[in-house]
């Protein structure tokens, strides 16, 4: 039986996800229901969207340290302008996406370190968020709320949304010619250039696409929480990076996996619930999350070893 490298790459995230899910079911059988799953994975949807956004930036060998503040900013816009004056809200979000595209262009043209530029931008987004919403509050747009709390038959919304996102991102990034171009830039920029493609367009679209996914993450988040504040999603920066790596992506070389990234985000969310079901002392909750991260990565190493052994034999 031949298994493609991409499928193998997915094996670890899927295995660790199922293992953790089994653990949660074992500890708290009541989660094995429609409502239980809904509550388990509710907050995973915005995280999965932010992870796909981070993955697009990482596909062109950059890193976005402003992801968390940007999603917070979007959440603030969604809870104020997008609710009160929808047209204005849409314009602001479009401008934010255009800003991201411009960042991609500037980083390429001036050969800047993306880490520093996005670090600077994280202050800008945080500042804008504070200006828009100095105190926590605002109201989620009705339609965002309606989508997030809707109850499709048989399978909870969170699962449906994650699955749709995984399929959509997979088609967009692994199957479309734009996706191939973006990953090509991460793999070998010069050869893509020699082949006659515009690096500028590729990088600008990678950043714009990333911003679009991040905007979706912010709106989803507000749909869930019904109100926003300027610090609502700060932890998304590290979560999104961890989710991409978890899902089998690499920091360089355009090696990414959209389906893996979504599963990575779900796994990270699940790890939190798993720990609270274990009744670990609150002091060690964060530490246990670190331990789970390490265990999963160890598992990945083990499977990689098995894979290379299989090749020799």
């Amino acid at each position, binding site marked *: 039986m031949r298994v493609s490298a991409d499928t193998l790459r997915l094996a670890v995230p899927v295995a660790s996800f199922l293992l953790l899910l089994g653990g949660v079911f074992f500890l708290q059988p009541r989660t094995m229901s429609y409502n239980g799953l809904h509550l388990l994975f509710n907050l995973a949807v915005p995280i999965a969207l932010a992870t796909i956004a981070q993955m697009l930036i990482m596909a062109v060998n950059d890193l976005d*340290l402003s992801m968390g503040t940007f999603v917070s900013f979007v959440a603030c816009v969604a809870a104020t302008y997008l609710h009160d004056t929808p047209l204005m809200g849409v314009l602001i979000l479009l401008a934010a996406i255009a800003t991201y595209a411009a960042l991609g262009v500037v980083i390429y043209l001036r050969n800047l370190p*993306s880490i*520093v530029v996005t670090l*600077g931008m994280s202050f800008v987004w945080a500042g804008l968020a*504070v200006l828009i919403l100095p105190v926590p509050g605002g109201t989620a747009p009705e339609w965002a709320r309606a989508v997030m709390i809707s109850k499709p038959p048989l399978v909870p919304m969170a699962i449906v949304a994650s699955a749709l996102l995984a399929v959509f991102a997979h088609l967009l990034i692994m199957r479309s010619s734009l996706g191939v171009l973006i990953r090509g830039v991460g793999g070998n920029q010069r050869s893509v250039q020699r082949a006659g493609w515009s690096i500028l367009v590729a990088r600008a679209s990678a950043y714009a696409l990333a911003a679009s996914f991040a905007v979706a993450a912010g709106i989803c988040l507000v749909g869930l929480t019904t109100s926003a504040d300027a610090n609502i999603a700060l932890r998304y920066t590290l979560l999104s990076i*961890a989710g991409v790596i978890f899902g089998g992506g690499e920091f360089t070389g355009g090696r990414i996996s959209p389906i893996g990234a979504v599963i990575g985000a779900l796994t990270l969310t699940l790890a939190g619930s798993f720990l609270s079901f274990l009744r670990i002392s609150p002091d060690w909750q964060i530490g246990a999350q*670190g331990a789970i991260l390490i265990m999963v*990565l160890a598992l990945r190493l083990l499977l990689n070893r098995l894979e290379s052994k299989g090749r020799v034999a």
Partner: protein
Amino acid sequence: MKSLMAKPWIWSFVAALSVWLATIGVTAGASFVGLSQAALTFAAFSVLVGIGQMFVITLGPGNIDLSVPATMTLAGTVALKFMDGHNGLIVHGLIIALAVGIGVGVLNYALIKALRIPPIIATLSMSFIVQSAAIWTNRGLRIKPPQALADFTTSTSFGIPNIALLALLISIVAWVLLHRTPYGRWIAAIGQSLPAARMAGIAVDGNRFVTYLLCASLAAVCGYLLACFSGGAALNMGAEYLLMSIAVVVIGGTAVAGGDSNVPGIWGASLFMFLVVSMLNTYGLGAGVRLIMTGAIIIAVILLASGRKAGAR
């Protein structure tokens, strides 16, 4: 003059000086001594963690130590708890802080090496565990530092803060280490090309191990001093030093891709980062505008500095 302008670190000093002048100008020179001493003191803490982070970044792409804040917190907490305000235990406290740093450094590199995890994820996972350990030891207690040590960290010699003198001493050692010892040459070589360095017979693993030890130890010393300076260890005391340690290194003209580092730039960038905040405070701007300005200035500096040479990503 021309050779001076070509130095990668000159821009951070130009930026720091202009912000300093802009602040002094507003207050008509009234804040001359106070501002300069405060800038030197707070810059010194950034310099200490920045130097450690610089050695790690020198190792090449993907090498960043995210456990710096957690290490600072744990070292400060444990050392203060041990000293319990006794002047006679100051040296013991320092040794304990160093031991914490070395411990974290060893574990960090063990993860990187044994599990072949990218350093960013390894140090991130480790930082969760270290942070938990700090929460567990701290338990909301606020122990006062020994009086003699608190006095030392908050007073000045010859008009210059003691902390700044200490940081200067460590900077000189770091400069010698980087430019005048085989170790400095080796880590630069590893940063430029790891396979090439290995071919050339450099003990890659040993050097990387020492570098992660060094970074964690410096973070621990910084945490020890900061806890004494601020009159007690707080659980969030390291938080702002995560991005700060990376920002001062990169703004200081060290190549993010590794292999080309410098120490003086860290001083310029640290002074700059502190002065920007105090300048914006002096102008009496709101939190939102202040954040936006900070971000804009960081991006402006990196744009200016990038003019010096291409290929410094």
